[in-house]
């Protein structure tokens, strides 16, 4: 289940203090909706990432509750304020209990 899951994020290297930066995230995941059937007509059980969060130095930027209607390889784009140099932490929570994490640091100046 938790195989081949590779998070990718795009964060600018530097920003001015108080600036808004655009963050883009993509994670490879099949996001099985639980609606599809296999060749024998059996329902394929749901297996999705159900939550995504982004924090900067411990403060929350965005917290997304995800449902099966989110496409395969979930993509999110949003904006964050950068009050100081630090690290963005991105976390995805899988239905099967797995947690995928990645972090990117940003400098100010």
């Amino acid at each position, binding site marked *: 289940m938790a195989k081949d899951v590779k998070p990718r994020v795009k964060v600018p290297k530097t920003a001015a203090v108080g600036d*808004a930066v655009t963050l883009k995230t993509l994670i490879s995941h099949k996001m099985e909706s639980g609606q*599809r059937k296999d060749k024998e007509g059996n329902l394929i059980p749901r297996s999705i990432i159900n939550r995504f969060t982004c924090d900067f130095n411990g403060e929350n930027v965005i*917290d*997304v509750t995800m449902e099966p209607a*989110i496409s395969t390889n979930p993509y999110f*784009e*949003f*904006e964050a304020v950068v009050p100081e140099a630090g690290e963005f932490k991105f976390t995805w929570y899988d239905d099967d209990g797995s947690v995928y994490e990645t972090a990117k640091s940003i400098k100010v100046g």
Partner: protein
Amino acid sequence: MKLTRRDAIALGAGAVVVAALPVHAMAPGDEQIAAFTGGADIAEGGVTLNAPEIAENGNTVPIEVSADGAAEIMVLALGNPTPPVATFKFGPLSASRSASTRIRLAQTQDILAVAKMEDGSFAKATATVKVTIGGCGG
């Protein structure tokens, strides 16, 4: 127990009534909206929902929601087997209250975005997307 023809007809009629009830009681998405707003009034406007007019592939339809001063935005696809799509909660370090993602749409339908503002009021926006190939497999 022996099932007579009369019993079978009575059972069938009962099943039809039961099946029809939820459809009449609630439009798709009403339940989620009620849970989200707690029954509060929802104003039109103040929310932007960007979605393509025509989506050739329902498996991945790009959408963008934004609402100034929103604390949370919930997105519903009213024609999907399960209407909820996602709920975005914006934290203290969120810059513009906007987010984009890609969603699945089973058929041509309306998408609804409901925003909960920081002052506790609610606003909504809808967009109709024509879907050429549905995105729920099957």
